[in-house]
């Protein structure tokens, strides 16, 4: 397991470094923040002073070096937009996104396992066809449209849910989570169904059936354990996507998460916050990928055996 982990950490660290460096350089190609943060009539001296204070007067490699040195001391700089610590802004925003992603994936996996297993147990039945149709539809619906329709129907029309916001009871979770949930759920139902159809046709399942095992025992006791590996892999990728892509949900529903923070930082050329947000997100995705790989290896010994020491 240790060699497997070592190999995975090294291979996953490469894209992590590329993303962090790439964002650093690309951000500086988008324009000079001085134009956004100083008044129209700012003098050349004021512009120079501002650039020097922010370190923008240095060459890009020098800026990168300073960034890396400071980041090693957990100093991510100050937000140009708010004057607050970039690190604290990111730390405040990240749990919001993690909560959304966590709740969403918990519900998506649970629901997909139930629906996908049911569909797989009786292939081509009415239940299977309905599940397939709904899951394909769910996987295809645009987040933005679903969110706005949810607000109009369940918020304004029926008056059952708040339109948006983060303060309140459990009801405030419903529309944001439903919006985030719909695509992973649709994808996972199809993956679970496919894996379960294969698993349920395996000889050991036929033997279990011939010995009189109940359908529940056959599905959840025998087949699911062997069908779970591809489901975990896809669920891991989807979770990474959720952490990275909750932008629409956070924007529409006013959730101050990392996605919205990143978009705002890009639009406002707030480099310190953008870099801190990308670094933390990239490290989280890195950790998630390792976690998925470990789960994968634990459930399927062939995975860890395939990695040379």
């Amino acid at each position: 397991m240790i060699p497997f982990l070592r190999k995975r950490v090294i291979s996953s660290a490469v894209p992590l470094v590329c993303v962090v460096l790439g964002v650093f350089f690309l951000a500086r190609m988008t324009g000079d923040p001085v134009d956004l943060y100083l008044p129209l009539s700012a003098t050349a001296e004021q512009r120079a002073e501002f650039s020097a204070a922010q370190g923008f007067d240095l060459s890009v490699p020098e800026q990168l070096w300073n960034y890396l040195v400071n980041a090693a001391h957990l100093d991510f700089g100050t937000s140009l937009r708010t004057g607050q610590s970039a690190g604290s802004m990111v730390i405040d925003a990240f749990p919001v996104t993690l909560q959304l992603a966590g709740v969403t994936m918990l519900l998506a996996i649970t629901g997909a396992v139930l629906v996908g297993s049911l569909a797989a147990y009786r292939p081509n039945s009415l239940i299977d066809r309905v599940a397939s149709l709904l899951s394909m539809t769910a996987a295809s619906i645009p987040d933005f449209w679903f969110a706005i329709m949810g607000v109009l129907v369940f918020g304004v029309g029926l008056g059952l849910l708040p339109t948006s916001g983060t303060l309140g009871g459990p009801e405030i979770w419903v529309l944001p989570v439903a919006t985030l949930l719909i695509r992973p759920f649709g994808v996972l139902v199809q993956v679970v169904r496919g894996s379960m159809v294969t698993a349920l046709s395996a000889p050991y399942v036929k033997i279990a059936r011939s010995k009189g095992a109940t359908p529940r025992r056959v599905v959840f006791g025998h087949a699911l354990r062997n069908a779970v590996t591809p489901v975990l892999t896809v669920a891991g990728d989807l979770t990474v996507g959720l952490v990275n892509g909750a932008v629409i949900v956070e924007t529409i529903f006013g959730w101050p998460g990392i996605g919205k923070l990143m978009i705002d930082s890009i639009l406002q050329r707030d480099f310190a916050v953008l870099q801190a947000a990308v670094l933390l997100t990239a490290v989280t995705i890195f950790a998630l990928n390792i976690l998925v790989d470990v789960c994968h290896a634990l459930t399927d010994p062939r995975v860890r055996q395939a990695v040379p020491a």
Partner: protein
Amino acid sequence: MLLAGAVLMSSGCAVANSAGGDTGRADGRTLRVVLTQEPPTLEPCEASLTGTGVVVRSNITEPLVERDPTSGELNPLLATTWKQTAPRTWTFDIRSGVTFQNGAPFTAKDAAFSIDRAVNSDLACNVEGYVFGNDDLEVEAVNDGRLTVTTEKPDPILPLRLSFVEIVPRTTDTEAKVRVPVGTGPYAVRSWQAGAAISLDRFDGYWGEAPAFARARYVWRSDASVRAAMIDKGEAEIAVALDPMEAEKDTTVAYPNNETTALRLDGREPPLDDIRVRRAIDSAVDRDGIVDALLGGLAEPAGQLVPPGVVGHSDGIEAPRQDVAEARALVREAEADGVPTDRQITLVARNGMFSGVSETAEALQYQMRQIGLNVRVRMADTATHLQYQLRPLPEDVGPVALLIMHGNQAGDAAFTTSQYLLSDGPQSTFGTETLDRRIAEAGALSGHERQQAFAGLLAEQNESVVQYAHLAHMNGLLGLSPSIRYEPDSATGDELRLTEVRPAEGAKH
């Protein structure tokens, strides 16, 4: 699954920890306002930024004088009277009995400190650039009740400029901008939950009439349909910047917001350096069609950069009617003289500038192509758009037609012309010596002569410069709950005065 469970278990419900939602319940005591974005700061010297000013100005802090958005007259606020006591000096009598929200009394020394901090300091305040340019002011508190302000050159509209300086106590930081201010206004900041809401409490020591609502709470939603839904659902009393598609509802009201849209034509680059081509573009624009079809009828076709109500606006300048045949003829004439009319012109517009901006850019592209010009559209974000908008202008990008939206909240064309029409104005690509001279002359005048001078030079722009093909004087759209009464005016988008909001008679909360 493990991760999801762990996150749930560890985080608890940190997000969901308060009843009543972000805006709070409709309790009749709290005025709930939904903005488009979170203010980056509440620093008073940044109050000329829309996102900051809409919360701060005349709610938390106040200036010495304020401009009536409808009549254009200056009204006393923290100064009771003012007069020009020397060619370069204005004297202000300061209101007595005013206290700051921290309990300190307000005197002329605070006013002097505030002006000095906003205009003469190294803080690089936005109000400095927009309102005062590079000129410093000499400010002196003669005594606690009197203030003198001296300018480098005679300035007939100094009190108007000072209406943009929000007064803060002398204890305010002079080395750095503050995030949360103290002022003399009717509301004080109670809390700022970063990312979620700003709450204000009524200031019981306020010198003026007490506002009707004991509290105010601001939240922000970037999607206009969600802002509108919050009014429909009773989650907010006021929602700013709604889409034209909401215009027919009883809960929305349109108001002229002093914004004007126009195409700025870069007169340094062929084919836009030829006045016939610029005139052709001006003639090609179908203003009525754009207003009706793309702006929901919530605008007026424009022929000048400032709308009615601003000193310098001329009723005699009408919006040009579309004349495609004449425009084509002008382009052909220029082409015959060797002007490269087939050179690609980049039409740059900013995402989110107004509702329907991308469709408007495409319509303009079509109309310019109709007369034989080669145009491509580039939609840009704010920072990129600023690079095209402000000097130093980008090099080697070819001819640019920039879609701009100019808001003149100061109420005087001097603020427009110094930026957009001077040859070397920060937002101008070119000009003429004649126009520069007329702008300088107009800026030194006052009263009727000032009005006539600015009206004349705006007409001169259309006749001999044509740097701008004006599109429309815009309207804002406000969502208002039936439970309140409020009449928006042209300043509402930048200065939403909460004291002017009253509960509707018989409204249930």
